[in-house]
């Protein structure tokens, strides 16, 4: 029995649709909840983007509020901080990809090479832990470690004869603090996907390579790495597509007026101007701008990936 026939009859149109639904009902039930989730929470709220062009009034509702054209976009583009916000957001994301993205890959490869199972498990658990510490607590620890007066890092620097550094207040250091603390928080957890990909490699490949006399490094280079390239590329595209989505939670916890120069990003600005000032139109306009750029970036990088490696999201 093929998809198109039932008891020798050719099915077309709606009947065929019903037949297929009946046949795949288990799969449809499984997909139903995520589908409803996406429709309810991702697609339906999208109509809210019209707020970016409206002067939102609670009484009149989203569609009833008066149109203001591009007023909020003009305000954002003419803000003295526009270019700084774009630069900071873009650079934090870029540095994140350059420095944070490879760490879990390297870690996963190293971990997979460890022969002692207990040590492998121990290292993996220890590396996960920071991921499960709440952001507020983790950043509190970072601020304490880096305290210019009594932070452990500055105490060590002083013991070594160096001058203490005000890591938090010095705008020059903010990006490093942000990236390094991000690596510390996430590398263990992010390595899971790569570890899973490595586990999926056919062990016969390694055995054959061993018989052929390949060294450990050669095995990594010629077997492990090529095998996890699809995972790496997909995660890279997803990361690149989120380039302007720098989370504001961590930055709010770390920034001070003295490091705004490098720390203030689009999301923190939206928080100050949109949410704190009840200016939902402005907040939505900046959010929409952010989303459009991200959308464009994901398309560009996806095409690039497809052309260069034949691996892509779609």
């Amino acid at each position, binding site marked *: 029995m093929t998809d198109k026939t039932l008891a020798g009859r050719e099915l077309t149109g709606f009947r065929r649709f019903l037949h297929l639904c009946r046949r795949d009902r288990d799969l449809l039930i499984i997909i139903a909840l995520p589908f409803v989730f996406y429709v309810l929470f991702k*697609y339906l709220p999208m109509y809210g983007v019209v707020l970016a062009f409206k002067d939102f009034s609670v009484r009149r509702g989203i569609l009833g509020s008066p149109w203001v054209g591009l007023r909020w976009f003009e305000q954002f583009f003419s803000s003295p901080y526009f270019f700084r916000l774009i630069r900071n957001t873009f650079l934090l994301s870029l540095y994140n990809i350059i420095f944070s993205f490879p760490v879990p890959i390297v870690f996963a490869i190293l971990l997979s090479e460890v022969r002692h199972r207990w040590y492998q498990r121990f290292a993996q658990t220890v590396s996960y832990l920071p991921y499960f510490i709440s952001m507020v607590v983790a950043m509190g620890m970072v601020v304490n470690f880096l305290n210019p*007066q009594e932070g452990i890092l500055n105490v060590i620097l002083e013991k070594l004869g160096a001058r203490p550094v005000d890591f938090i207040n010095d705008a020059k250091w903010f990006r490093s603090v942000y990236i390094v603390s991000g690596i510390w928080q996430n590398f263990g957890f992010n390595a899971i996907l790569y570890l899973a990909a490595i586990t999926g490699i056919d062990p016969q490949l390694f055995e054959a390579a061993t018989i052929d006399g390949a060294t450990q490094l050669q095995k990594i280079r010629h077997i492990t790495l090529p095998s996890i390239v699809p995972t790496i590329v997909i995660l890279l595209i997803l990361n690149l597509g989120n380039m302007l989505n720098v989370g504001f939670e961590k930055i709010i916890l770390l920034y*001070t007026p*003295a490091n705004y120069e490098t720390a203030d990003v689009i999301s923190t600005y939206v928080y100050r101007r949109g949410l704190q000032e009840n200016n939902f139109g402005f907040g939505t306009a900046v959010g929409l701008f952010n989303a459009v750029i991200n959308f464009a970036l994901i398309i560009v990088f996806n095409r690039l990936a497809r052309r260069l490696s034949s691996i892509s999201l779609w």
Partner: protein
Amino acid sequence: MRKLSVFVLVLLAASAMVAVAGSQPEKPAATTTAPAATAAPYMGKLPLSAEKVTLRFATHQGTASAMAKPSNDLPVYQYLEKVTNVHIEWETVPYNSYKEVMTTRIAAGSDLPDILNLSFLGNYQKLAADGIIIAQNDLIKQYGYYINEFFKTNAGYKAMMTAPDGNIYCVENTVLDSHLSIMPMVNKYAMQRVGLGMPTTVAEFTNLLKAFRDKDINGNGQKDEVPFATMFSQNDPSYIFQLANAFDLEMTWGGGTDPLFLFRAKDGKLQSQLQLPEFKAFLTWVAELYAEGLINKDLTSANYDRLIEYVSKGQAGMVSFWSTYAYLFGGASPDNQGDKDGGKASIFVPMTPLKSTSGIQYYTKRLGLNGDGMGITTKCAVEKRPVAMKWIDYLFNGPEAMMTQQWGVEGLSYTKDAAGNITKKTPEGKEWSAYVTEIGGNQPPRAHQQLLAVWRSWMPQWLEDLDATYQKYYKDPSIVSIQWTQEESDALKAKVPDLSTYVFESVTKFILGQTPISQFDTFVAELDKRGIKDVMKIYEQRYARQAKALGK
């Protein structure tokens, strides 16, 4: 791909239909809501309702250790329900996220409580025009017995609670404006060790800090002193700005998003203070204190716990915070000899104000209202509004409600004899004021009056005596934070956030020495470029109303 496009189009169409269905414009809410009174005038009689009435009240959970999160599990709220016959369903949100949570909820316009704490939720007139809250004038007239009594003797507070359109949209929190607010507190034993007294001038202040730095005030043989432990942030810069009085400036902190400190009134005209040479002199001085290691290096990220840590290690000779906390800093200090609460004798003593360059010695009074206000929402059923008003009125100034603030609950935290004499009662091992707070008394996180009587019932005697001697130093701020019109509020919203960001960024960099003071003129010019004069014009409009409303 075509199928995908059709799917997306169908989805978008569905969203639009839901949107249209879900956002029918609401009718503007009526502002006069009280049913005509037929009975005798309301005179504050208990219970507030013959039948039990349930009201929903959303508020934050409080800002300080002197506040308890409202809950029907607490004896004070159980007692208030018993006497008023009004059951409150509390919806509380932590103070730091209250604004975000509530503004989002207001924007959704649904699921509003009956009574809402309007703490920094935006312009009251706008909230009323948006159909969120109602004007309370008529209700106050009929059911605001205790509020009207309060207004009779406090016309200034009434003027500040009245919006430019003549309506009162909420009853607001009144503050003790001239009693031990934010100011430096000096460790008197540290002063004795370095052989210096309470500073009265900028030079003496600087010398005292230098002595604290150089003379090992904690005697541990290490150079770990933090002569002046303080804080400076965009959320509250007053710990540093309070000292600007010594430079003939008046940097009043308006709280929230009102950067009142930008301006002062002199001879009936507003001045942009940050562009004055006096501000340059002040900044130069603070930057020197920082550069000389006289202020804690982490002043931009420090908080109360950090200040307590510096004090408890004996590192801090001086600390800047609410001076009502002086006894807590004293209790934490190594100079405290067995006095558990630090309340019996003074250790950290609130500093007398420094003499200004023109010879005046003063602290600016705090603003009379602090933004916590009880608004009645349009979602409160019309028949419930009189009771809601009576409840607000009663909790604001009703005698039993005042008693709970000051003393807690009879039988639990105090006893009263036949002659009416009150005796404090505390369970074994508890400190009395902390116990009163714990059961729901002291300062509630809703509009209330900060009362001197409440304050006196738990303040150590030495601090109260000191406060009396400091009264001569308090001076009214020249600009008062009366309410903005809706238009002013919208205009400020477009200008102030970027301006504030620039001001705080620049001032912090000057203080930390990241920008040399030689660039002060660039800062002044940049403020003009960024529209400080436009902002000042809006403040001038409000100032003109202030003169009319308050006569000053």
